């Protein structure tokens, strides 16, 4: 996907001024936040389950090479082909080679965020083959000239029912539908023809299971089941970090994944696909490929933000992020938005290409509290900020200001003397209402807020004065 993370501020500005989008973003709190809270109440002990999920994911990462090789062995034994993609471009090359090998002119696809990293759909179309997204949200975006997703589990979350109505009427050439049921039915009728005519199906992979060589798909629309079983060829694409050692581990993670994502006890569909169609079996692909994607992940694994790779893509961090809730996913400018995106995006595309993202958080830690695999998101954002500071990837006045502050705060006498002057000046600036309406060098603050003026004396000088008075008496 084209990288637009350097335009974070402008995009956030535009999105905050977009009344339609602001209305659509309101869905997050009812649709995701409230439902998650209700569904977690079903668990006897969410914290213990969450810890178990963390352990499962961390164990996978700690010996990732072992599990990957085990996966490759077991998948191969069951007739699948395992391919490795070091870069996003390699993903596209593999897919196009597979399509060419099987003469696949028409390809259907269920949801895969990894494939957004390499803009796979455009590469397929560029090679003269047809690809149709079958996840409803992804389909909506595809027919709207490949609009980027704004959320990892609700890619078209930023769109309203009315916008989808207009889009369907325009693209399908049908009468404008007003009800969501009617829109779903229309999408189903359109997509059904594609399922039956497709030569090849591409899916993502929520988990790759090392002990069985299976891919696990967690979905709600049934489209992944059709995509992966109707065509003769199935290609499952996912990041190397999505491996888990055992099916038992999947069971643990499934206790927290749908609940954290959509507030469901279990998703409508959970597909566990293992090997090619065997003798006497009724369905399943005859040719099965796994593409395991690195694209920066092994570098992250070796870095100080490696815990981000525990992510199971539930979206809870963005759903609960007050910044995301107000600016929407497109502001972040790449595949993964919200708090986890603010760690993954700079890690995958380069810190220098996403300078705002590690900074674009109040570190309120709502994300860290809801993460089902206990990724310490604020701590990881802070690590990236340290790298930015060390690599001089922040403006010099900011770095100089921080250095000056700690230099001064290490010298209590000077700190006391200068702050005594400073608070008097600011008190004077505050005027009669004790509010500073325009703060020199603090325009970022006073553009939208007043700065309450200081009282005019520091605590330290007042306290020292009172002590002196007390001693004198």
């Amino acid at each position, binding site marked *: 996907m084209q990288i637009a993370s350097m335009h974070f501020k402008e995009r956030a500005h535009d999105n905050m001024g977009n009344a339609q989008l602001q209305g659509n973003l309101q869905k997050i709190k009812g649709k995701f936040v409230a439902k998650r809270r209700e569904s977690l109440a079903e668990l006897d002990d969410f914290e213990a389950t969450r810890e178990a999920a963390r352990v499962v994911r961390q164990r996978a990462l700690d010996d990732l090479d072992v599990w990957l090789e085990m996966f490759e062995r077991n998948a191969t034994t069951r007739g699948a082909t395992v391919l490795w993609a070091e870069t996003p471009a390699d993903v596209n090359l593999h897919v196009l080679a597979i399509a060419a090998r099987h003469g696949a002119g028409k390809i259907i696809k269920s949801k895969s965020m990894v494939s957004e990293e390499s803009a796979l759909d455009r590469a397929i179309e560029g090679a003269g083959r047809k690809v149709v997204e079958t996840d409803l949200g992804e389909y909506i975006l595809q027919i709207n000239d490949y609009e980027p997703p704004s959320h990892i589990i609700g890619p078209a979350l930023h769109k309203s029912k009315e916008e989808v109505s207009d889009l369907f009427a325009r693209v399908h050439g049908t009468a404008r539908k007003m009800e969501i049921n009617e829109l779903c039915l229309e999408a189903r009728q359109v997509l059904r023809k594609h399922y039956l005519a497709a030569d090849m199906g591409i899916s993502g992979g929520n988990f790759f299971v090392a002990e069985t060589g299976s891919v696990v798909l967690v979905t709600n629309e049934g489209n992944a089941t059709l995509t992966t079983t109707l065509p003769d060829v199935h290609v499952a694409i996912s990041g190397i970090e999505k491996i888990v050692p055992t099916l038992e581990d999947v069971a643990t993670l499934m206790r927290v994944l749908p609940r954290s994502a959509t507030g469901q006890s279990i998703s409508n569909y959970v597909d566990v696909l293992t090997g090619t169609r065997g003798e006497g079996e009724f369905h399943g692909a005859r040719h099965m490929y796994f593409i395991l994607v690195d694209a920066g992940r092994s570098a992250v694994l070796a870095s100080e933000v490696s815990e981000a790779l525990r992510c199971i893509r539930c979206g809870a961090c963005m759903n609960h992020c007050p910044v995301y809730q107000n600016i929407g996913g497109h502001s972040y400018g790449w595949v993964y938005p919200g708090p986890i995106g603010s760690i993954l995006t700079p890690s995958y595309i380069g810190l220098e290409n996403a300078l705002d993202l590690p900074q674009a*958080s109040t570190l309120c830690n709502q994300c860290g509290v809801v993460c089902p695999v206990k990724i310490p998101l604020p701590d990881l954002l802070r690590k990236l900020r340290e790298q930015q500071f060390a690599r001089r990837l922040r403006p010099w006045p900011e770095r100089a200001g921080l250095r000056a502050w700690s230099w001064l705060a290490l010298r209590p006498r000077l700190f006391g003397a200068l702050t005594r002057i400073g608070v008097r000046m600011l008190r004077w600036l505050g005027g009669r209402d004790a509010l500073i309406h325009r703060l020199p060098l603090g325009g970022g603050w006073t553009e939208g807020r007043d700065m309450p003026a200081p009282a005019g004396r520091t605590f330290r000088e007042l306290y020292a004065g009172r002590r002196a008075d007390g001693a004198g008496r």
Partner: protein
Amino acid sequence: MRVGFFVTCLVDLMRPAIGFAAIRLLEAGGAEIFVPPTQTCCGQPGYNSGDRAGAIALARKLVGEFEACDYLVAPSGSCTGMIKTHYADLFRDDPAMLGRAEALAARTFELTDFLVNVLKLDAVPGTFTGTVTYHDSCAGLREMGIKQQPRALLARMPGVKLTEMTECETCCGFGGTFSIKYGEIATRLADNKCAQIAASGADAVVLGDLGCMLNIEGRLRRRGDSRTRVLHIAELLAGG
């Protein structure tokens, strides 16, 4: 019981009265107060902005200033959260300092937590009469577990009626330097908070951190609300 009082840089510079109010409450609970005269900043601005070296230097200074006390108490969830949950990270490669920092962290308390759970303060001197709503600050709530403590103290004031706003646990948008670097987003978050405060119908919003206080008060006033008071919990509890 010798309590080291860490006033925090924001209270020191912006609202010294809050520091004195906190001291009155601690003394009412029987604490002997010691205010290290050289105290300045806990290092959080640098820590959160990537200046790890600056943060380490200030953390080292603070540990030295307070470790002789039985407790460290501060009128802030943010600064106590820094000491209690982040100093260990700063000193992860310095075993000697790590031990000292962890020993201090174990004795570090946010003001209302200390009043309720250590001093077990029964009566509070404040005489405020009116409806208040409480804003839970992020670090206080999610790092220090401050939720019931301020409410328990407010319940000891007969004239105070607490009306919870919706989303009282949602960030007000301050976020330290975030509030200046991303002023527009910070303002939007503060605006949401102001709308919720207004909807609660409270006469005052009460909170436990200066950052939130300046941010919320600044936005309320810019919105033209000069009526809703913004009070630190220490001021309310200690009275005039």
